[in-house]
């Protein structure tokens, strides 16, 4: 009896309407899912999307835009989202998607993310980190220390400090958009403050990183990015 009443109380507390037209956001979200015709609309939208001719992205098209562009994949997403260079501050370049999801990169190292799940506030790394300046695979230093900051109860947030050790792996032929690249797999094994993760980078001979899987925090996990057009000052 009490359980039923409790559920009823919760439901009614959540349901309200007002002159501002503001219904409860939870109920609104649920209503959008269950309202009559919602499934039909979703199916129609999906059919329309699949019928639409897919835009083939090529490096030529990317170069034509004149923008720095990266592609990010999170979780089970296989297609990825394009993010365009929008701001440059010192050595940090912020890329944003059309939905204003943002990533900040120092060289090829993701140093911040917003609105793609769990935010990474910032990342500090040692000077000369081969992720921040193009470094040929044979010249990568042995290790760096990095400080990740996530939301917490202070302005500095929650700090996770790790030491990352680099190791060189085998050569890898990378197919990216309409081209194929010869790369070397570089691995960075990081640990510290109770976390342990491994980032993978596909590095060209001149040190340019084309693809990399990077850790964005204990909640977010790994994110994969393709650097389709690096920022050049």
């Amino acid at each position, binding site marked *: 009896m009490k*359980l039923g009443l409790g559920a*009823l109380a919760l439901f009614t507390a959540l349901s309200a*309407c*007002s*002159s501002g037209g503001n219904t409860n956001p939870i109920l609104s979200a649920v209503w959008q899912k269950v309202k009559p015709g919602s499934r039909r609309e979703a199916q129609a939208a999906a059919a329309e999307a699949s019928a639409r001719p897919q835009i083939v992205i090529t490096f030529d098209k990317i170069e034509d835009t004149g923008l720095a562009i990266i592609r990010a994949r999170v979780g089970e997403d296989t297609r990825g989202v394009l993010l365009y260079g929008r701001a440059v501050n010192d050595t940090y370049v912020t890329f944003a998607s059309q939905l204003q999801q943002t990533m900040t990169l120092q060289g090829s190292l993701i140093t911040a993310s917003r*609105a793609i799940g769990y935010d990474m*506030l910032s990342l500090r790394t040692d000077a000369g980190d081969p992720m921040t300046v193009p470094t040929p695979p044979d010249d990568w230093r042995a290790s760096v220390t990095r400080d990740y900051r996530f939301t917490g*109860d202070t302005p*500095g947030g929650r700090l996770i400090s790790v030491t990352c050790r680099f190791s060189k792996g085998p050569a890898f032929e990378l197919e990216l958009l309409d081209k194929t690249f010869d790369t070397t797999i570089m691995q960075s094994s990081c640990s510290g403050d109770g976390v342990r993760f491994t980032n993978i980078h596909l590095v060209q001979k001149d040190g340019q990183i084309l693809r990399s899987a990077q850790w964005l925090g204990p909640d977010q996990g790994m994110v994969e990015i393709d650097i389709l057009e690096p920022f050049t000052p």
Partner: protein
Amino acid sequence: MTVRTSMIAMSALLAALPISALAQGFAPSFGNHGSIGIIDMPNAAMQPDGETSWSFINNGTSSGGVLNFQVLPNIEASARIISLDDWTAPGGTFGDNTLDLKFRIVAERGLRPAIAIGFRDFLSNGPTASEYIVATKSIGENLRVSAGLGWGRLGSSNPVFSTGSRSIADNSFGYAHMFAGDAALFGGVEWQTPINNLTLKAEYSSDAYIGEQVFGDFTRNTPFNVGAEYRFGTHLSLAAYYNYGSEFGFRLSFSGNPNQPITPQDLGTGPAPVNARPADYSRDMAWAAVPIVRRKMLEILSSALAQDGIVVREGRITGDTLELYLNNNKYARQPMAAGRLARVLAGSTPPSVEVFRITLMSDNLPTTTMEIRRADLEAQVDRPNAGPDSFASTGFSSAPYHIAGEGVWEREVEKRFSWRINPSIPVNLFNAGGLGEIDVILAGSAQYRVTDAFALNLAVTQKLLGNIGDSAGVNLSPLPHVRSDAARYDSTGPVVGRFTADFQTKLAPSLYARVSAGYLERMFGGVDAELLWKPATQNWGLGAELAYVKQRDFDSLLGFQAYEAITGFASLYWNTGWNGLEAQVDVGRYLAGDWGTTLTLSRRFTNGWEVAGYMTVTDVSFADFGDGNFDKGIRLRIPFNWTLPFESRAATTVAFGGYGNDGGARLNISNRLYSTIRGNDTTDYYETWGAYWQ
């Protein structure tokens, strides 16, 4: 110092120390009291910090609900509202509301077990009052054993020694009974089975269940209990027990943790990227000499910001400074609104504007002004140490009621008339039977805002169905019936819950004022005035409130009864800045004419979750006060943001207690000043400043 007092003091001291918890073999689980434990017996395990749970329990001899909260990593609290069957007479139930506390004084580490000291029905010698010391040790990853020593109920079966005499359980308030009388051993084992999420338990109980066997048909055949718990994910668990060889029991628990939102955060939109001004940016301020340019600039800015849930009420721009007073209607954390706004301003104002003064308002009251230098913003954005650097470089000050100076742009009063309708379900869990009474009502409210400072408010309810008041008996309270006649107010007709004229303003940058007149709440009408001194850069404030009220007619329409009272309080508010803990002390005269004090402790998480508990002790004797001896209650606030993948400032509140007793009763005023402006001082901003760059 006696053994008892030293144990109580030691437990409080040690629990406050930041002893870090090591990972335990498997997740702790609730006992049949709704607190972390074995079955009927406690253990020394603790939940993750902030974990909050609501349990429904039915043990054959008792039933009810339990709100459990991990106050700090080493302190667990449970508020229980239970009904004890056959307690006062055959078939007679006894409603009891208790506070249980457990302090872990040693965390488990290596071979050392965790050790905790606990209190059931803290500071009250009620039917369930007991104290214990318990040790818990994980053996491997799937086994946990506990052993302890209990007093009170937990010392009633096969006692091994005695520490003096213990008075009978008479519900008296105090600590003299604690750790007094017979002490007995208990213990148990918990096993995480190979079946995922299934835990089996067995225990030896030191509770003799004497009271239950006097009038009831309960028989304690054996001291051994067994049980099983199954967890459905991380938020729901179900347990069943077979206790004392004679009774089955069950428990259903819902859990949540403010530190672990149930949806990913920030799937909305990110902040606007910021590009620093070029080194040779134009410092020309000629544009600022043209009033229409300044006004148009503010109007356009205001219009653009409104689409993002930020409503500018006042603004002023000069050649090098922009001042804005605004209401943040979207972002749960105020620094996030300020940070996003600063980014927008950096990208949209003339380059000569160097200083942004952003004042956040609460319910049209300006609170704190943040002064952000644009050059600092440009130097910090996207950099690793941006959080601490930006907090250090931002200036904070108390805001005056209006922007000073000439050329201030003001928005017209927004939404002069507004209304809201929502169903509501008031629950009275404190009636004599303890089984709960409940109504379903339709509540409507409307506001007509005459000016930003002055508004008329109306709240009306209509009962649809329910039983509150059906079991009201003869009211024997020796005090003026300021609350104990509550059931008589719950009539079936329309009820005017509030019809007031409310005026609020700031008399000085740190001094707030409010006057409300009319039908203030369901049971009283009159005039209520309040002052609050609360500098923005200070983590404490002082308040004073004075009211003259008359008791309203039972139909809650427009008439009054004869009873009138002058009630008033002096209040101290202290935001400790430590783990989100806040304290409030109110001293004064309550509605029934009694003098006393209310202590409120709350813990507010940076995402807006809040758990608050309060207790009121007045010069009314415990005997005259009635059930519970003194007023106490708990309030839980859960922001919708916790369950949503986008920003929202909406929240829902659940409160227990403060219903039905005449002693320690205060006016129910919904717009008290501190509750309106809290969350806006520098201590709060420090704790939530991580959101400034989000």
